[in-house]
């Protein structure tokens, strides 16, 4: 299969994962963001990466928008930029534009101004989002089946300072802590505080649970629910 030409504008979580998935599938990908750090982060993994403000018409002209099979506008936080970019792309003769919407009204506007496809990843994540709003301490859920799930949950206060063994989650609730995600703070060169996420996979029973740890928990949804309510 001949590689197609893609351009991804906006390298947030969604844009980045689309760009990487396309690159992995051996497609030609130009990745664009106005934030230098985001561009640097991805440049080794895609065909080309550019720092650019996509709402700047002159700049947009230089990339030859009409050469791409698909242009993905993955700007979500800033509706105005998303709309302006989509509009400019269509005016400059882009073949196909897929834009990401952050809300119903945003989606409606994108369709009106000529986006060929509007995706609403948030809607597909609706279940996760709803869960997150109901229990803000839950960060992610992977449903393994109707009855089993893996959830990421902030360590409840009652478990802080306890080892996994002493926490008794396995004996009390029949659930397993399969990993711990921990932010480790340090000083940056400039003397500010920064941090790094460390993931402890299959933690030792003697591992201590610290404040703010995210526990990746595997168990039946019923047991996880029980754990959430009681701890």
């Amino acid at each position: 299969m001949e590689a197609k030409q893609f351009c991804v504008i906006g390298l947030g979580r969604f844009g980045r994962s689309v760009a990487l998935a396309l690159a992995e599938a051996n497609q030609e990908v130009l990745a664009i963001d106005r934030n230098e750090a985001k561009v640097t982060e991805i440049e080794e993994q895609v065909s080309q990466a550019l720092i650019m403000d996509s709402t700047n018409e002159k700049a947009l002209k230089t990339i030859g928008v009409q050469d791409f099979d698909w242009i993905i506008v993955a700007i979500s936080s800033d509706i105005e930029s998303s709309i302006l970019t989509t509009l400019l792309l269509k005016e400059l003769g882009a073949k196909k534009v897929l834009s990401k919407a952050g809300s119903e009204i945003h989606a409606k506007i994108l369709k009106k101004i000529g986006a060929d496809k509007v995706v609403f990843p948030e809607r597909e994540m609706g279940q996760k989002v709803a869960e997150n709003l109901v229990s803000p301490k839950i960060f992610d859920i992977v449903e393994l089946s109707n009855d089993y799930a893996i959830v990421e949950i902030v360590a409840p206060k009652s478990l802080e300072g306890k080892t996994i063994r002493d926490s008794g989650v396995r004996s009390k609730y029949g659930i397993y802590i399969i990993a711990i995600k921990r932010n480790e703070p340090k000083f940056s060169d400039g003397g500010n505080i920064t941090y790094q996420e460390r993931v402890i996979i299959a933690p030792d029973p003697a591992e201590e649970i610290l404040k703010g740890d995210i526990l990746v928990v595997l168990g039946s949804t019923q047991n996880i629910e029980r754990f959430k309510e009681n701890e």
Partner: protein
Amino acid sequence: MSKEFNVHDLIEEAKFYIVSQKYEEAERLLKRVLEIDPENVEAMYNLGILYEIINDRDRAQEYFKKVIDRQPTNKDAEEHLNKLSEF
């Protein structure tokens, strides 16, 4: 001791508490700074970082917003806030 000097010391001490993962002590000091100097943006920013580290995202967002209200061009706070707004 002048107010500025005192506040600066408290913030530096709080930072050391954060890197030693003594978050409650750090939080206490930074809040004390805000009692002495309610508009101290550095204390607000560091509280944002502290809450982000311990995954208290709502409170982290709250403090980064306070920073941006006072310093609309603060890129660091903006980046943290953007990151926290994503699901």
